[in-house]
């Protein structure tokens, strides 16, 4: 396994300078996530409009390069998407990381495809999968309006 497949430039760059970072004022939904094994924390803020489209998404938190990059890329991908499409992207992403199934990515443009595929190397590192998936599970919780804290020890 080549380390470069895991630590691709896109990941390192997003890890260092995450997009959509910070608290979102007037958010409509939010959820927190926590990985007790390594201390990674994420807080997702969402603003859904009346059609349930993702108008705004931001996050706060701290963690390793993989978790920061994964969250940053995720916010870029779901911003502007409808509720259903956002959910579909989450499902496809989690399936790719956990079971290696292919992403159809029909809702993503080429740039977005490149970004999300940069995270696919994580599946070769079972101990790092939760770093990549924490924020995606947290986003699901926020979208569903459950507002329950996601704990990586309690989700797949």
């Amino acid at each position, binding site marked *: *396994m080549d*380390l470069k497949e*895991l*630590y691709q430039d896109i990941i*390192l760059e997003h890890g*260092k300078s995450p997009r959509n970072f910070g608290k979102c004022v007037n958010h409509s939904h939010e959820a927190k996530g926590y990985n007790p*094994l*390594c*201390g990674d924390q994420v807080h997702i803020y969402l603003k859904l409009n009346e059609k349930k489209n993702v108008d705004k998404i931001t996050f706060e938190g*701290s*963690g*390793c*390069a*993989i978790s920061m990059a994964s969250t940053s890329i995720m916010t870029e991908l779901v911003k502007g998407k409808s509720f259903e499409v956002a959910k579909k992207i989450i499902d496809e992403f989690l399936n790719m990381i956990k079971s290696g199934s292919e992403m159809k990515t029909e809702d993503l443009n080429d740039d977005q495809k490149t970004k999300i595929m940069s995270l696919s190397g994580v599946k070769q*590192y079972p*101990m*790092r999968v939760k*770093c990549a998936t924490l924020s995606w599970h947290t986003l699901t919780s926020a979208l569903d309006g459950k507002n329950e804290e996601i704990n990586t020890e309690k989700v797949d």
Partner: protein
Amino acid sequence: MNIENIKSQFPIFSKKINGKNLVYLDSSNSSQKPLSVINRLDEFYKNEFSNIGRSIHSLSVNATNKFEETRNSVKDFINANSKDEIIFTKNATESINLVASTFGKQNIEKGDEILITELEHHSNYVPWHYLRESKGAVIKFAPINENGDIIISEFEKLINSKTKIVAVTHLSNVTGTIVPVKEIIDLAHKKKIPVLIDGCQSAPHIKIDVKDLDCDFYAISCHKVYGPTGVGVLYAKKKWLEKLPPYIGGGGMISEVNKDKISYAPLPEKYEAGTMPTAEVVAFNESIKFMKSIGIENLVNHERELTNYALEKLKTINSVKIVGNPKNKAGVISFTIKGVHPHDIATILDEDGVAIRAGHHCCQILHQRLNLVATARASFGVYNTKEDIDILCKAIENCRKVFDLK
């Protein structure tokens, strides 16, 4: 001491990890096993296996003798008074749970205080927390300073008439602090308070003399002492083992069983219910022989030299910060690299065959105290060499390169 010879006694070092020689720097987590221990397990299962205890047949008699030989070796190894003071458990965690549970049942009331420290591993906190939940006990934490040393004057202030037991680690698995436990035991004993020492990290790395320490309880995990998993030791003064109630109930720990009453076996069986990890206990005798063959002083000197060498080298690498600077430090070095999360460090080092640990090392209280979320940790065993440290430093340089650190 020929260190090359020692490494060759550990079969695992002939394995390649990611195509590289294994540089194992995770001995605080668990040690590797010498061939003599592995062979003993194999031999025992092939030629000598039987359950120990009450069977009359030859195999059982032999197995019982071998099992008891290990008890005797442990007694000598930690300089206990009697083999009745050596209880085999699952690990140090179970040893501490045994004490917390039985001592707590008998001696802890609502509002009573249990004094531990900010250095403790979760296994020397959670069992006491159970008493906080079940009995309304209060847990006090003796503070540490930035160096990772317990502030003894503060510790002393926390001892009062409500303090019922003191439980403290002998060696921190994060900062490598060798705690002046003798001083702590003396302070507690002046107020007639018993002391449990968590010797999980110390047993493989420093000389243990329970008689000299005068501790009431001492907990050991054999898998960290070049021994098999599944075996731990609880040393306890005989007066405590006689006075405290039994822990786990079942076969082997009873004397007489009637419908209306049960009496318990004498020591040490009173605390060893059910079938024990027989082969593992028997094989642990080989671990003690291995330690003795090196000589505990040689081992201490070798690891001290390695630690000093590693600290000097790591200090020269930009952006590496060592966690804690205790007065007396063993071969445990936790560190951070500015701009790289410990989990990323561990993944990148693994690529070079370097096995370290990343996270909070079951010490969240300590990490909170030092304002750290997670750290990377390199910890040594007798088999490590200066070359291992050189490879570690090179791997850290590679880590800095991947993250493009200046």
